């Protein structure tokens, strides 16, 4: 999209009236929130949880460990266009593209290797946004640990297994768009 695109709607910040410009209403609003929390704790409504006994469920748009989605036939959905690797600000994605095997009539390219360095990743979600076939997605896995650096470099098999683990609990966020 170009900067001079007529479809772009430019918004101005709202004008404050004299009373609002004293910033008293905003301060009162903030104190009210604090007050509600204090009263809630007194009533026994805790805002913390007993992790790890009690599992934490992040919000649906939480950006955790990546997964590589599969299509209906169980093949990797990725077409190795490398747009995620291009968009990645920390260069943690490394893909080796190859001509798709005979019989994959609907696409001509697939990733022979797909590696994400989870240690280098900053979980910004740019890869997910760049992907034209919704193959790479971020899941709600947040407790990412490992005993060595090598273990944290996720290859294609590992990323596909994350999909198998999460496909039921987290359906694809983008819906199922057509592939090439």
């Amino acid at each position, binding site marked *: 999209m170009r900067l001079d695109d007529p479809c772009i709607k430019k918004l101005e910040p709202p004008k404050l009236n004299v009373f609002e410009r004293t910033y008293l209403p905003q301060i009162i609003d903030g104190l009210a929130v604090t007050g509600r929390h204090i009263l809630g704790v007194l009533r026994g409504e805790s805002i913390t949880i007993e992790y790890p006994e009690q599992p934490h469920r992040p919000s649906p748009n939480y950006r955790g460990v990546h997964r590589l989605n599969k299509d209906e036939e169980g093949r990797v959905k990725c*077409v*190795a*266009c*490398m*747009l995620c690797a*291009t968009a990645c600000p920390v260069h943690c994605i490394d893909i080796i*593209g*190859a*001509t798709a095997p005979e019989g994959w009539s609907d*696409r*001509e*390219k697939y990733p022979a290797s797909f590696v994400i360095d989870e240690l280098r990743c900053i979980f910004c979600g740019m890869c997910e946004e760049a992907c*034209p*076939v919704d193959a790479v997605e971020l899941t709600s896995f947040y407790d990412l640990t490992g005993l060595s650096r090598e273990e944290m470099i996720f290859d294609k098999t590992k990323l596909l297994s994350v999909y198998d683990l999460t496909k039921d609990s987290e359906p694809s966020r983008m819906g199922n768009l057509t592939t*090439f």
Partner: protein
Amino acid sequence: MTTIYIDGDEFTLENGEHINAIQAAARFGIEIPYYCWHPALSVVANCRMCEVEVGSRDPKTGEIRMLPKLVPACQTPAKDQTVLITKSPKVLEHRRMIMELLLLNHPLDCPVCDQAGECGLQDFSYDHGRAEHRFVETRNVNPRKDVSDRIQLNADRCIMCTRCVRFTREITRTGELQVMRRGEHAEIGVFPEYELDNPLAGNVVDICPVGALLDKDFLHKQRVWFLSKHDSICTGCSTGCNITVEENKGAAWRHKPRYNPHVNDYWICDEGRYGYKVANDPELLDATYVLEDGDHRATPIDQAIAAVSRNLALIAREGGKIAAIVSPFLTVEEAYLLCKYIKAISPSSVLAIGPIPRSGEDATWLPDKSQGRTGDVSFVVCRPFTIRAEKCPNRRGVEEVVRHFQGEVIDYASIGARIGGGEFQAAYVTSNAPEPAFDESAATTIRRGVSFLVVQDTRITPLANQADVVLAGGTYAEKAGCYVNHDGRLQFAEAALPPREGVLPDLDVFSILLERGAAPIRSFDVLAELAAEIEVFAVAAGGRIAEFGGTIGGVESNRSAPKNGSVYEQVYQDPWAGVRR
């Protein structure tokens, strides 16, 4: 003097050249988009992308008369008093319409298309097209097919500009490609059993403005925006074609031609195109070796160079003679430093040029204005393209350097016999050739003739197996320097890749041997030095070389060279090729 008016501004063309409106507008920084026009091919004006408003001005009254319809700029000569309007609403609407037409059947598969990033459709669709697609019918889908072992045709991406067809008819005059069927069903194709296999076939991939013709060697390996381009010179033969070496992640991925009207025009041969594999060969020498107790041991480079320096100095002090074989694969700068070093140790040393690899005969393609042409040829300048039998880049340059230091050039045949005859006590042999320059018997002759043998090469050869010290040299992609081609044209090649692990570029090795100090050596400094010292290389004075190179000895070659300042003396590149800024 020719005066033309573009978008209301007045411009003058000095030389009275016969060029078209696209070239004239480009000269003044005004872009007229096009697909099917190519400066070396006849004008067919079938993509309709370059259509602009054209008129003429009456010089007496100043009255301007415009043609009622839009006219293709590629077919419009930029003659005196021509008026071009390239940005009117009528022209812009026309471009939008043409983009929509060209993209009717085009699949939206840019993410998997190798052309993405250097694609004419992407660029002009962004600049001139529209975002919506109004076509509701089923798109034509043509399956992929092979036009040769090396080139794949994705017919659904084709926009029928016929550049490739005209290339095979007009430049190679082999005519393998043609348009089959008509109208919406038109398709590029080859006859069964007559595949596109001429030695220049790979150029159709370069001139294809879209992703229809793709190189199977490069297919799906890299995205073009990851590649860094380095201006280089092909070392495959003594033509010295201008190329870009495109590199990513420490490996070369492809060669693309660079325009040079004095050398290779717009083309390169397939041999040079796939010659990049030499730079990625896993068999390349990975360390320097010194012979100790009958065994070659990997030795740090500084110790190996010290051993060379010590032994050669010792032999010279004892009155021994040293022979140096200067490879025609070395750059001019490297040859200069090597000769200087050898002559500095002992003035009685003998310099000789290494074996000149030859294979087959020179093959020349000479396009003709009347042969195989399908359209207007009045803007075409025909220049020959030759693949030389002499398969080394720098015979002329090395000869000139050796002649400067020694007064005569000794060829390998005579020095080989003299080494075999036991005239010399030490030999310094350089090679860097992609194929071993010395076979088993030649290697044994050299080895038997001398007591100390230094070999500088990029790979393990029969001669290296018998050497006292093996210095690992750089491939063409790892070193910067100048080559002098068959015509005597001195051209500069940039280094594309960093030196391999454990290897110093040849220029640094010679620089250390000459004890020129520890600072990294720049090829430009050496070039400036040798240009000042050797009169023949005066064209490179100050270490500066012109865009298209310069002729050594001040003698202009007999090739039909364009006049200075003419449009053909300016760098040409299709607007979609290269990085978009």
